[in-house]
């Protein structure tokens, strides 16, 4: 069970149940040991409550506000950016891709027995040759760039994760 001191601190802080509160109040009235300890802790409690707060330098507020001003002032509020804009941009791309897909499928004639797929595009539209795209030098460099970019992003992500872990 709790020590006398622990019980009395709970009584002073008001963190015990009403029944315990009554029991301790009675003990303080009747028991000399409890009464003396209670007075001692009460004084100590007053003393702790009288502690003074430290004062920062005069320029404290100014320094904080200057740092905030020099960092982009609006940056802290970027979380307040309207999410509808982001959703709108995303929806535009999804809609474009879907429209292109539907258009392509609608103009495709499948002839499975022959194993050929014929695409009849409207007059004037010519699809570039897929073979020439994949074998071109530009495509190879594009792939190399993608790999390098993926490695770079993975590296920075892992570094950030590592820093956060050690912070």
């Amino acid at each position, binding site marked *: 069970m709790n020590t006398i*001191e*622990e019980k009395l*601190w709970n009584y002073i*802080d008001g*963190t015990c149940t009403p029944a315990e509160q009554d029991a301790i109040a009675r003990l303080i009235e009747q028991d000399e040991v409890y009464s003396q300890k209670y007075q001692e802790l009460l004084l*100590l409690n007053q*003393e*702790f*409550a*009288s*502690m*003074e*707060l*430290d*004062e*920062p*330098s005069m320029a*404290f*507020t100014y*320094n*904080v*506000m200057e*740092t*905030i*001003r020099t*960092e982009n*002032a*609006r*940056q*802290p*509020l*970027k*979380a*307040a950016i309207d999410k509808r804009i982001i959703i709108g941009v995303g929806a535009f791309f999804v809609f474009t891709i879907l429209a292109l897909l539907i258009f392509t499928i609608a103009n495709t004639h499948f002839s499975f027995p022959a194993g050929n797929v014929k695409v009849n595009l409207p007059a004037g539209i010519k699809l570039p040759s897929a073979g020439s795209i994949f074998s071109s030098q530009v495509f190879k460099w594009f792939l190399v760039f993608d790999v390098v970019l993926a490695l770079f992003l993975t590296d920075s992500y892992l570094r950030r994760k590592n820093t956060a872990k050690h*912070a």
Partner: protein
Amino acid sequence: MQSKLSDIDLIEQTLAGNQSAYADLVKRHQRFVFTLAMRFSKSREDAEEIAQDCFIKAYRSLAAYQGQSKFTTWLYTIVYHTAMTFLRKKRVATDSIDDEGTYIQVENHESAYDADNVENKSRSYYLNQAIEQLLPDDATIITLFYKGEQSLEEIAQTLGMEANTVKVKLFRARQRLKEKLERNLKHEVKELI
């Protein structure tokens, strides 16, 4: 007029782009935040750096403050985490100097300095001196409880602990503070004799 505004009002004004409202918020809480920072760093320069860092972090994430808890509870959580990170970095930088050793050094330095000003010493001086000798967690809990107007539940939220754990820690912190206070006062009486 401005001083009558609540923390929430000032936050709303800040989010609307009024930076002077945030300056008011800083002025309102700077003493307590600085005192909390002092509980960890023991040096005014470092404490000021921690406190400034806290207010800047709070400003950056002000839009994320949902108002589910008191602003002070939210702010003190930032202070606690910033100070803990600062301590960890400092420990790495100083090649893990023992904490108690550091405090004893600070304590002795204070005693030597104040030997010339014995007459000016008051009860509050001894109390502050005793708090400085406590471990950061004990000093923080005592400060939050007595000066931060925080309930045990709010302190638990700030420190990321259970309310019962905070209750036990507060009890132990008070006991340690009482011992240190008594020891310092005895030492002072001996010095005077």
